[in-house]
């Protein structure tokens, strides 16, 4: 059946490691789990984490991938790797040897990125697996507790998942405690007599961590409910750095696997299918942004212009936003023929707004950045807790309106968690909109 044995994997792994070391990469050791198709679906559903807590949405994700795969709309990923130490990566039993070689080289790139990019400074790769494990255990305990049960657990998790991306996005920056902010404000007041902030306000400054804020300040949640919110927040914190660096991370991993494989002197029967697969992974997709392609081509450009040493620094200090701001230029946008488009109500059609020519490329680049990772998710923050314990939330409107039907549902989830009045202010078609 398969064209490989474990000895083959070991053989190529050793070679890959040698080349990667020569390139100056620095990565966590990798544990490869060899799994079958079904297990791969399972691993994907739980975003690779072997110890993730259970929730029906992961069952849905499983069915979704399964369906798409059966309909031929998606292939299974060649790589799935967890930001842990050692990194855990999956190899699918059914894949051919050349795919495994590509996957292993690719995983070295990811692991190197996890270990070096500063967005990941606060992730805790040594303990992440255990931390997820204890969360999973806690969730299971609640489900099995006859006084709580699965319906109640789902009630909280459903609501918490609705705001799971409403957490701070400035990975790498430490967040100040209330006391620290208070001290700063007082310092400012001594320097400037006219500065009179309201020091009893809660929160003192806009709070972007909705999950944590509600867990800590709601007057109606039971202890286990608060704990569930914090579990979801923990898991979000794990994923935020990855969401902030999707383009770079994939681009870097592709760059690395391409470099490594070209050094391996693969025999033709492995090299030719590899080239084909590589081209498939990094090809542009019409009307879409393929992060593999975007990241790979940008890193290629950087290496061409500044050498590998420049690329090594880039993989360390940037996130997707700064990466694109710094390195995307007119020539690149024009070469890749990026354009922006939107649905026009009056025409009942999607039309092109801007194209990457001299006049338009900056606008298209800005929209591209708007469409990257977490920028696709609206920001909602806690403005203040008013009298009667009303939770006042503000949507940071950046020109894009919320989808109201979705926002209404999320609003209901927040209400359920908060337990008292909630207000959410946004803008819709240039008018103030209050939920």
């Amino acid at each position, binding site marked *: 059946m398969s064209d490989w044995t474990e000895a083959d994997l070991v053989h190529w792994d050793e070679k890959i490691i040698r080349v990667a070391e020569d390139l100056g990469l620095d990565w966590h050791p990798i544990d490869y789990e060899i799994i079958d198709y079904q297990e791969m679906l399972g691993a994907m559903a739980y975003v690779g984490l072997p110890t993730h807590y259970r929730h029906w949405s992961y069952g849905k994700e499983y069915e979704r991938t399964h369906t798409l795969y059966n309909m031929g709309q998606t292939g299974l990923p060649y790589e799935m790797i967890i930001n842990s130490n050692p990194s855990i990566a999956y190899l699918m039993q059914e894949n051919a040897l050349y795919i495994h070689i590509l996957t292993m080289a690719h995983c070295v790139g990811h692991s190197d990125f996890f270990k070096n990019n500063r967005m990941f400074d606060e992730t805790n790769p040594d303990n992440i697996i255990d931390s997820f494990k204890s969360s999973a255990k806690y969730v299971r305990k609640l489900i099995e507790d006859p006084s709580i049960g699965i319906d109640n657990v789902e009630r909280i998790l459903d609501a918490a998942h609705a705001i799971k991306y409403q957490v701070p996005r400035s990975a790498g920056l430490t967040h100040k405690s209330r006391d620290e902010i208070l001290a700063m404000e007082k310092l400012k007041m001594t320097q400037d007599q006219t500065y009179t902030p309201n020091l009893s306000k809660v929160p003192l400054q806009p709070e972007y961590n909705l999950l944590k804020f509600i867990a800590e300040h709601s007057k109606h949640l039971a202890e286990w409910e608060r704990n569930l919110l914090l579990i979801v927040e923990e898991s979000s914190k794990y994923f935020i750095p990855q969401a902030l660096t999707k383009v770079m991370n994939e681009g870097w991993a592709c760059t690395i696997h391409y470099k490594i494989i070209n050094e391996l002197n693969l025999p033709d029967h492995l090299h030719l299918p590899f080239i084909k697969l590589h081209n498939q992974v990094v090809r542009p997709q019409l009307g879409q942004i393929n992060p593999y392609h975007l990241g790979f081509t940008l890193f290629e450009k950087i290496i061409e212009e500044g050498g590998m040493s420049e690329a090594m620094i880039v993989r360390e200090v940037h996130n997707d936003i700064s990466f694109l701001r710094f390195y995307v230029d007119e020539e690149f946008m024009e070469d890749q023929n990026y354009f922006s*488009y939107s649905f026009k109500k009056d025409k009942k059609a999607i039309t092109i*707004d801007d194209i990457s020519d001299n006049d338009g490329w900056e606008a298209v680049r800005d929209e591209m950045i708007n469409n990257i990772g977490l920028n696709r998710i609206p920001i909602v923050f806690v403005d203040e807790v008013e009298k009667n314990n009303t939770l006042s939330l503000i949507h940071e409107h950046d020109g894009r309106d919320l989808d109201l039907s979705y926002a209404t549902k999320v609003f209901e989830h927040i209400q359920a968690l908060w337990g008292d009045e909630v207000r959410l202010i946004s803008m819709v078609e240039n008018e103030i909109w209050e939920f």
Partner: protein
Amino acid sequence: MSVFRKHKSIVDRAASDRGRHKKKIEKAIKDSIRDVIADESIIGQNGTKKIRIPVRGIKEYRFVYGSNEKNKTVGSGGGHKVKRGQKIGQKRTEKAKGQGTGKASNERGDEYYDVEISLEELAEYLFNDLQLPDLEKKQFKFVSQETIKRKGYRFKGIRPRLSKKETLKRKIRRQKIAEKLGTYDPEEGERFPFHQDDMKYHHIKPKVKENSAAVIFFLMDVSGSMSQDRKYLARSFFFLLYQFLNHKYEQVDVVFISHSTHASRVSEDDFFKVGTYGGTIISSALNLELDIIEKEYHPNTWNIYSFYCGDGENWSHDNEKSLDLFKKIKSISQLTGYAEINEHYSNFADEHEEAVMPDGYPWPSFSAWKNEELENLWSKLTPLCDSKFKKVMIGQTAHIWQAFNSLFGGGK
């Protein structure tokens, strides 16, 4: 060197979450089934045919941007020529979901699952909570099922039915007695073998599950006033009813009667292939039913259920007579249902949602047609209504399920 290992776990870790998701999907199926039960593609199908019904996926809500002008999408054009203002599609395209690690997707859009189910499963979902009311024990019983039940022990029997426990108990008892009597000393290490007399066998007895006999009368108006739409609704109603009975009760007799100015007993096939003609005399069908009951289905022996469906446009001189016959049928039936197809009802239902099917008295206090047809059969039947006589009005396909619930949903 990296570590390679075969995955240890053989359990499907997603199983319980998939099961939970499936439960939610099933609920969604149940919710949308009510919209599809009167669908053309279902009516008239036999049980083997699979039906595809679209079920809205279970959504997970997040804050997302709406699909409007200010929310632009960016994509690469490859080798294609792109121009500002160029029309490239009708509706917002779904963005492909990223693969691999770090998914922070906010894809929205309605997800539909095409769920394929058989008529049997459909019936299962639909009729789970419904039943024929007041099924009484009558003299005449059907043998519908034979099961085998253990009942006590016997000293004779076949080897497979040997009761090891009872046998051992008897042997121990015998052994103890022997010890007391001094005929057997366990210290000597001698075996104390089983004896033929120790053997005890399970006794089994066939048990017959008995169901009361029931006969269901389907009476349908096939007069000329039954327009295409009305016919369709009536047919759907009976089709659903038939599925319900088939699903729930193994042994029921169904008598099909269609009528215009006179009634005839027809086969199942003919009943569902309705052609329409002539005027309407409801009493003809009711008389025929009573005839058949007298000859074949004595009320002492049979549970009788009667369901009439028509457009209510009876010849006015026949209304009194029909009323009397309905009374008579009611007196010998477990349940009599009168379903009237009336497209005016749609409007009413829309405007007075709370008044839909209030305990089988959905007479609208509304509109001109009330006064004009005060003397119609529908209003004449009102005094008959109680737990044994129910009337329902069907104005559109959505009402069929409501009608069903009010007939079989336990009083409501």
